[in-house]
């Protein structure tokens, strides 16, 4: 029943992509935060979260994502998201997350806009 979160890190010259798989709850959110903070400590300032393999989020997990965004903004960086399901997209808008992070329909569009593809 438990959908354990898996996070794959893809480092690029321009930043990093986190591919999440599973439920973003308190445990999943913390797992994403751990990876994101490691990357920030390593100097990454452009981070893309690809949620293609995540179908469920909850409000606790989203509050952790907001904390990650705030920490990145403090460091002068930027976090973006791509490949959200319609319901997760709607949930992000309700929770105000969309006010602080850009949401892209596809990873291709995100990479192009964020300068990863160059």
């Amino acid at each position, binding site marked *: *029943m*438990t*959908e354990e979160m898996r996070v794959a890190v893809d480092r690029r010259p321009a930043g990093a992509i986190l591919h999440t798989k599973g*439920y973003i*709850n308190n*445990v999943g959110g913390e797992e994403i935060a751990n990876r994101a903070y490691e990357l920030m400590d390593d100097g990454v300032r452009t981070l893309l979260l690809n949620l293609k393999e995540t*179908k*469920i*989020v*909850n*409000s*606790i997990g*989203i*509050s952790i994502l*907001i*904390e990650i965004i*705030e920490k990145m903004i403090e460091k002068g960086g930027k976090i973006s998201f791509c490949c959200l*399901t*319609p*319901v997760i997209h*709607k*949930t992000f808008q*309700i*929770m105000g997350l969309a006010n602080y992070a850009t949401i892209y329909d596809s990873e291709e569009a995100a990479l192009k806009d964020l300068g990863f593809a160059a």
Partner: protein
Amino acid sequence: MTMTAERQMELTLPMVPDIEIAAARAAGNLARELGMSSERIDEMAHAIIEACINAREHSGCADQRIYLRFVGTFQGDSNPRIDVWITDHGRGFDLSEARTRRQKLGPAYKRGRGIQLMEAHMDEVEIITSVDGTTVHMVKYEKKS
């Protein structure tokens, strides 16, 4: 307008981590049997998850159980409707305080947005809460008339 009872399900679930997923999947299976679209089912699933988390995190109930009832009907010829009741026997909460809290901004208010999500994802939400417990009744239609 006619409503015919087609499917009913009752569950008693322990308050353990991620039990909300089991509740959401059970309701989703019932809704799928009635022909509800996957996007509407996903919205309902997210609302059920928030209601179960609120019960688990905040009810303080002694029996550590969540009581769920799902009823699937059709409104009109082909408009599935799912009624969901999620009950705990906890201490209840101040609904007006919870609604006020979500209007505020700032780090202290990042949490506690579950009711807002339930109301956004469902077509009808009614919360009855007292010192004897809380029942959340939510309704999801395929097509809201």
